[in-house]
């Protein structure tokens, strides 16, 4: 089936933009509600349950509260940037959502409609480029507020986000090596199996590239600026960090931006490592469009719906997982955060990229065809590497505790230090 063209394409794109944006907004609204519920349940509370059925209207009440509150702009703030910053914080996550394939192609009387707003040929390079913009909202807010706390938060935010962006980008290099393409729909189809067309891996990339997935999840979490990576906010140390001086809906935009980021990060992890909209253990939904326009598989409207549900479930899983982490793990110390980023993730990723490249080269040289056997071999290698990495991380050698740091001070040994008791 041919892709939609001409007027139908324009109409389809506008409709998709509106529908996907509404889905994203609803998701954000529900995830603020869900965060409170999850936090409540984890702390043996009930969470919001007074406003509307099951407390669902709490979201509306919050929105209303944000809009009705008094808006304060500090007299010494730099007005233009102060107003621009919240918009910049919200913008990247929203725009990123446009390149994520949400479901299998939908057949219509006018042609095939791909369930992606903008199928950009640069794929995840676009994702990395736009994700880097998120730091501007934080830095700009911190600087323009003209407040010490905001400034500290902005500085921390820029250092942290730039550090973890490297991890984020590098953890996608093995995916690129395996898939050989940066287009998001191709990445999804590479994780499915097909009877015809070029060979694929038939396995979600979380298995053959387990360590890569681990790094991407942690770096993605760091990019969302949530606990345990919420150093830019750190309300215990620097009040509210970069959004200390913000009030009313301007603060609300930072608040919502966090949830936009959360959902987008969850969606990106799903696409890169959990097969996107692929439904596991069922081959019927495996549909792909080759570069020359031939469609392999049988697209129907109910398959689109089912894959949409599958994708939503995967994204929701990660959103809930990030909520669990937020309400379980305390914030990192700043030096630990930087150690983890620069001294652990980047060297480990470099070694991992090398090893994966060697493994792929060796498998090619040994004549193993691309397919299940190929990815199973990679899975075996990754499993071992994962165990080694977790073992090393777990022994407390890579990220130092306070003990090791104190011992490193010249002239102070554990022995002399304990004499001071």
């Amino acid at each position, binding site marked *: 089936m041919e892709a939609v063209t001409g007027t139908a394409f324009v109409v389809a794109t506008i409709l998709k933009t509106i529908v996907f944006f509404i889905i994203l907004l609803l998701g954000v609204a529900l995830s603020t509600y869900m965060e409170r519920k*999850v936090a409540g*349940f*984890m*702390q*043996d*509370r*009930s969470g919001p*349950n007074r406003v509307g059925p099951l407390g669902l209207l709490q979201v509306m009440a919050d929105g209303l509260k944000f809009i009705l509150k008094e808006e304060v702009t500090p007299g010494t703030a730099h007005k233009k940037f102060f107003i621009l910053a919240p918009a910049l914080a919200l913008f990247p996550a929203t725009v990123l959502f446009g390149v994520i394939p949400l479901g299998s192609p939908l057949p219509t009387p006018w042609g095939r409609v791909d369930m992606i707003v903008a199928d950009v040929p640069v794929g995840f390079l676009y994702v990395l480029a736009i994700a880097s913009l998120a730091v501007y909202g934080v830095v700009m807010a911190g600087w323009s507020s003209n407040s010490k706390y905001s400034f500290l938060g902005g500085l921390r935010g820029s250092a942290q986000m730039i550090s973890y962006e490297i991890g984020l980008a590098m953890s996608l290099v093995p995916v690129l090596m395996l898939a050989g393409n940066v287009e998001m729909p191709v990445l999804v189809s590479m994780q499915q199996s097909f009877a015809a067309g070029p060979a694929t891996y038939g396995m979600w990339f979380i298995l053959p590239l387990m360590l890569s997935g681990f790094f991407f999840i942690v770096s993605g979490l760091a990019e969302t600026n949530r606990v345990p990576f919420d150093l830019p906010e750190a309300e215990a140390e620097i009040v509210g960090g970069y959004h200390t001086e913000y009030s009313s809906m301007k603060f609300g935009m930072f608040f919502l931006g966090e949830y936009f980021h959360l959902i987008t990060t969850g969606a990106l992890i799903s696409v890169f490592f959990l097969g996107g909209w692929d439904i596991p253990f069922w081959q019927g939904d495996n549909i792909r469009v080759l570069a020359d326009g031939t469609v392999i598989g049988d697209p129907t409207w109910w398959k689109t719906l089912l894959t949409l549900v599958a994708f939503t479930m995967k994204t929701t899983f990660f959103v809930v997982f990030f909520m*669990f*982490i937020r*309400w*379980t*793990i305390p914030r990192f110390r700043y030096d630990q955060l930087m150690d983890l980023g620069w001294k652990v993730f980047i060297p480990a990723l470099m070694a991992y990229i090398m090893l994966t490249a060697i493994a792929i080269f060796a498998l090619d040289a040994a004549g193993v065809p691309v397919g299940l056997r190929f990815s199973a071999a990679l899975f075996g290698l990754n499993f071992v590497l994962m165990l080694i990495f*977790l073992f090393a*991380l*777990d*022994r*407390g050698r890579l*990220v130092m*505790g306070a*003990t090791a740091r*104190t*011992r490193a*001070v010249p*002239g*102070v040994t*554990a022995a*002399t*230090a*304990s*004499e*001071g*008791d």
Partner: protein
Amino acid sequence: MPGEVRVVDRPESESSYIRAISKGLGITFKHFMHADKPTQQYPDEKWELGPRWRGTHRMAVHEDGRAKCVGCGLCPTVCPVNCIKLIPAEDENGERYAAVYEIDEFRCIFCGFCQEVCPVEAIHLGVHYENAEYSRERWVYDLARLCENDHPVTALWDPADPSSE
């Protein structure tokens, strides 16, 4: 002086990352799945108050609706925070009654001395606590409101065991 830094040499099992994080996630997940929450849905579900709960006052009334108070003046005298205002009066039969009887529930510390000292068992503390109001004036209860209150009165001691007061 750096030499006074106390260094705690923790075993690896206590200072490890992955194990501690998985253990923490396990604990929070256990609580997440734990359906039995101690939260009480207050306006829908109310507390069960004990019989000795000391709350909002109520005035006992005769069968014809008159307050039992004889205006003897013992309760304003014994009141440690001076929250009872009493102006006694005498009717044409020579019977004393309270012309003005007001209790400021803001000042009251709910000690129960007024109930204990009352010779005719007129003023009582009640088993009741919901007395939120929109104005401060409403917190001063006059005689009519005290008589209207119909919540159970406080048992200042267990009737089965009077010596344990």
